[in-house]
């Protein structure tokens, strides 16, 4: 039994594959098979077979229906239907399931093929030939092998730049720790996130976070890869606030990481079974501000789709934008995520990296609704987030960006960690806080969840949003940070006390 209490081996229902790849050891002066001492000699020259014998074995195998894939001084790599193996060994081919560690912290049953029979070896996948005229001292069936990808550390590296780490420091600043300690962790609340993909970073496993298998929108795009690193990194913000939430990542990017399937990704997120309670979106479009007129028909149809999700009871979070102007965060009922920066002295101010404006398209809508933690211009390198090693963000953030920023994020270009944020970080933070609220009070509507977050947010009165909009943070709700920085524990308490 392994540590999960599962048997190490079980019977298999899988058929023997149509083609079985194996290996035959051609007789030399010595053999690794059959001896009592299971040890390799210091030199393998004694196992070498004479060329004439190898040629003879090759001909015999080809006559029996084998293809010769490769040859060495010791033996031949072969392929044939299972019947050909049974013919030369007199045994039977049978499948068995072995429980193996496939990747870091990931185990599963893997089908193996064995040669069984009275005169066959007890060793998995090893057989003997039935005819002594065939100069083969052992038949082996290849055992499944696995790639050994290099996994990054689950622990964030240090950086000389002032920054916050997930999950702990972001949880502290969002005041989520008290809620966690009271047992409110957003347990089981499904948060869907259409984005660039979700790399299986050890950070998530080491922290025990719950991720469903990623769904890919674009045919042929690997759901377990994230060539940009954006979705993987930003999703860590959800768990900083709500460690018990369940993430359903939806890869909406193509093989280059371009966000080509965002709308299809959102439609899939709406249609999940079981339903997502929250859809968090760290992306959007851009257009002139102020706009030339009303939104076009596409924008309106897209806005109707977002509104429909809200009417179904799904809380929809969109990032306000990092200077962009876009319809998504303006849709009435959307929780639009802006940014607040906590500086090294502990003071809060509006992030000058984020968008903030009164909607010119919808009455009584201001963007943002409330804020999460976001860095400052020029690059908002603020939160140390896990990414796929050597992905676009891992490389870009580890380089200086002259003339705007002569320094890098202090990490390596391939270490699987990078400093970044943007309203892309704020949206999943707010989604995480909303998951805490819904974990405590599952029957709440999106409107009620937003009320809990905004009524309890910490008012931010310093700084301004991005210069494109240049709105200052003031006492009370404003166009720089909305209601201010969300307070997770206060939001949960508000929901418990008032709904």
């Amino acid at each position, binding site marked *: 039994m392994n540590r999960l209490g599962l048997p190490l081996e079980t019977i298999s229902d899988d058929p023997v594959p149509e083609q079985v790849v194996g290996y035959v050891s051609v007789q030399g002066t010595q053999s690794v098979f059959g001896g009592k001492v299971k040890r390799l000699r210091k030199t393998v020259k004694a196992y070498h077979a004479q060329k004439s014998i190898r040629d003879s074995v090759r001909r015999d195998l080809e006559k029996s229906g084998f293809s010769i894939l490769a040859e060495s001084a010791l033996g031949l790599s072969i392929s044939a239907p299972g019947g050909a193996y049974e013919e030369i060994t007199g045994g039977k081919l049978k499948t068995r399931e072995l429980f193996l560690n496939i990747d870091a912290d990931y185990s599963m049953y893997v089908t193996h093929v064995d040669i069984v029979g009275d005169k066959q070896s007890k060793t998995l996948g090893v057989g003997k030939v039935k005819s002594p005229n065939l100069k083969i001292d052992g038949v082996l069936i290849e055992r499944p092998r696995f790639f050994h990808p290099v996994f990054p550390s689950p622990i964030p590296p240090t950086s000389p730049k002032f920054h916050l780490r997930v999950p702990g420091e972001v949880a502290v600043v969002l005041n989520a720790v008290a809620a966690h300690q009271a047992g409110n962790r957003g347990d089981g609340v499904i948060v869907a996130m259409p984005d660039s993909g979700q790399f299986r970073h050890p950070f998530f496993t080491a922290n025990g976070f719950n991720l469903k298998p990623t769904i890919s929108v674009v045919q042929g795009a690997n759901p377990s890869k994230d060539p940009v690193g954006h979705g993987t990194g930003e999703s860590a913000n959800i768990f900083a606030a709500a460690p018990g939430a369940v993430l359903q990542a939806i890869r909406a990017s193509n093989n280059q990481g371009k966000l080509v399937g965002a*709308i299809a990704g959102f439609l899939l997120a709406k249609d999940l079974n079981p339903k997502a309670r929250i859809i968090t979106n760290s992306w959007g479009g851009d257009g002139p501000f102020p706009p030339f007129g009303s939104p076009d028909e596409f924008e309106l149809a897209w806005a109707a789709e977002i509104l429909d999700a809200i009417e179904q009871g799904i809380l929809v979070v969109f990032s306000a934008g990092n200077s962009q102007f876009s319809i998504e965060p303006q849709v009435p009922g959307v929780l639009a995520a802006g940014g607040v920066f906590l500086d090294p002295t502990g003071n809060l101010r509006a992030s000058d990296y984020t968008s903030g404006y009164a909607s010119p398209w919808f009455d009584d809508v201001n963007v943002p609704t409330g804020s999460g933690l976001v860095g400052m211009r020029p690059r908002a390198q603020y939160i140390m987030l896990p990414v796929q090693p050597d992905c676009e963000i891992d490389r870009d953030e580890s380089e200086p960006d002259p003339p705007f920023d002569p320094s890098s994020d202090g990490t390596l270009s391939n270490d699987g960690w990078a400093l970044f944020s943007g309203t*892309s970080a704020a949206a999943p933070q707010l989604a995480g806080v909303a998951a805490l609220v819904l974990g405590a009070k599952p029957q709440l509507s999106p409107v009620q969840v937003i009320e809990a977050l905004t009524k309890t947010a910490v008012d931010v009165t310093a700084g301004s949003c991005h210069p494109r909009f240049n709105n200052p943070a003031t006492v009370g709700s404003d166009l720089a940070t909305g209601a201010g920085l969300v307070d997770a524990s206060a939001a949960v308490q508000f929901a418990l006390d008032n709904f």
Partner: protein
Amino acid sequence: MTDDYVELFLKWTADGEAPQVQTWLEKNGLSTMRMKHGLLITGSLQQIETVFGVSLKNKQPPIELPIPQELAVHVAAITLPRPRSYHD
């Protein structure tokens, strides 16, 4: 397929949605998803260019695509919308 995946928005005429439009698009190798007000069409750039008889390379969205004769009665517009990008 992944390098040139494209999303298009289809707007119905006042008569509302018509299942035969979806059937026609899917017969031509495109995928569709129903929206509250319209239809999302997806496919490769090459498929889209072939089906709609246009070249989209080096053009700046939003772009109105010509409506195929077979769909003209039911479809008011087909648009390649502005791209979406990450907010990092």
